[in-house]
């Protein structure tokens, strides 16, 4: 257990050295947050409710999405597949550590760092600049759990599709398709509630809404009580499914490595 904690701390430290990248990234968050807010004003010009949201909720959504973006690695992690592959090879050399578990522990460290340094400020801007309401005490707890689950779902997905590096010489195509689908179907570029019914159905059958839509809706108070618990359960279910998928693909891939000779 302690080994995993050490990995998390190392994951955190690794990202804390990229200070200038954080500032540049936050700047991007602020610019796009502002632009998307402007779009929302225009969208709500003639109606008070669109897609079940009020203008205030839609604006809060924009800023929450910007805050969550880095925590859930919305644009993927290019070096990750390479590290997974080397992790697998290292395991081959009989180091008694679970690759997926180790990578997850490291990623939680990273996610913690990003929560503090990339997550808080965009959300704070949304709350302060637009006088938007904060969650109640119970909702905060639910939000925290949902955030953790969202980061987990995203990680398990990233881990699983990075494993395509075992079979494909260039896994980047798979990675890119995943990133594109995630950008759209998670509700990052536009809330899932805005989707036309058919697209909303498609999205609900994927893990993606668990990554942005669910935690945001819990924060804005759109999901409360039983509905919120159901949503959290859905996130947990997706996390578990992807975790198992990842493990299955990993052992298949390792076997292939052995046969091929690394």
């Amino acid at each position, binding site marked *: 257990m302690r080994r995993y904690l050490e990995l998390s701390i190392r994951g955190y430290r690794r990202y804390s050295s990229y200070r*200038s*990248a954080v500032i*540049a990234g936050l*700047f*991007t968050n602020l*610019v*796009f947050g502002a*632009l998307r807010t*402007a*779009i929302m*004003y*225009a*969208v709500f*010009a*003639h*109606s008070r409710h*669109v*897609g079940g949201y009020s203008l205030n909720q839609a604006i809060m959504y924009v800023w929450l999405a910007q805050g969550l973006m880095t925590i859930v690695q919305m644009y993927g992690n290019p070096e990750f597949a390479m590290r997974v592959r080397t992790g697998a090879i290292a395991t081959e050399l009989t180091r008694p550590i679970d690759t997926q578990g180790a990578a997850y522990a490291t990623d939680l460290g990273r996610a913690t760092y990003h929560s503090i340094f990339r997550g808080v400020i965009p959300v704070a801007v949304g709350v302060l600049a637009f006088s938007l309401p904060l969650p109640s005490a119970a909702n905060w707890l639910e939000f925290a759990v949902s955030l953790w689950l969202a980061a987990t779902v995203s990680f398990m997905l990233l881990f699983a599709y990075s494993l395509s590096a075992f079979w494909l010489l*260039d896994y*980047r*195509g798979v990675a*890119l*398709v995943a990133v*594109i689908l995630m*950008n*759209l179907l998670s509700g990052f*570029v*536009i809330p899932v509630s*805005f*989707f*036309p019914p058919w*697209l909303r159905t498609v999205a609900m059958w994927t893990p993606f809404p668990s990554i942005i839509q669910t935690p945001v809706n819990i924060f804005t108070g759109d999901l409360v009580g039983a509905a919120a618990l159901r949503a959290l359960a859905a996130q947990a279910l997706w996390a578990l499914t992807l975790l198992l998928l990842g493990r299955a693909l990993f052992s298949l891939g390792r076997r292939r490595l052995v046969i091929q000779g690394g």
Partner: protein
Amino acid sequence: MSTIAIYARLVRLQVRSQLQYTTNFLMSVLATFLFTSLDLATILVIFSNIRTLGGWTAQQVLLLYGAAASSYALADMLLGSLDRLPQLIREGNFDSMLFRPRSPFFQLLASDFMLSRGGRLAQSIIVVIVICTVYIHIAWTAGAILVLTVAVISGAVILGAVWVAGACISFWIEGAGEFVNTFSSGALFVTQYPLNIYAQWLQATVTFIIPIGFVIYMPTSYLLHKAPIFDMPSVLRLSSPLVAGAATAAAAALWRSSIRHYRSAGG
């Protein structure tokens, strides 16, 4: 051989090398195509909920989007290598370009030419053509087509000039280069939507200070008979080519003085 010819030759060599890895290349093109379509999907989703945005219908906004994206894609294909400048300076590899008896600007442009960026261009041009032929009910006279084509090309030049100006920051302030990238992608985002939905100060900024408003909004709003912002007369709305020329001259001057500064103040 002239500098332009050398630039063209290097581009040709890189294209040939990239095409050799055909599957890789096709995948990159497809990926770029799909990624660009995210913006399109966003607009379509928005319009499944409302009828007009800032007084513009879905088809009109899609025309705006397609034309803006085409300008962006064209500029990206020709000037995409500018993104590398902060890294080149940081690693000391920009100095290698200064060793050579040629313009460092064209060396930079040729350094990272990626044919796969064409995927973006293909997607946006398809959108424009489909929208224009099927949905936009204006008389597509030769004049109108000319206005649109000139608009897209001038728009690309204006964007390029703005990017060059942004890239120059790397010569003056260390580490500022990464911030400029935000403005480039922000620029695409802003120009996709009708400018009149933005706050006054933003409208003024993108019209008079960083003239990306002239990339597409001005000529398109003219074609679609929309009321002009800032009560701009029609003549000025069609002046993208002039704005492009002025922007190019300004960017060139800024580049030259930035290189001079880099060589005097120390790299």
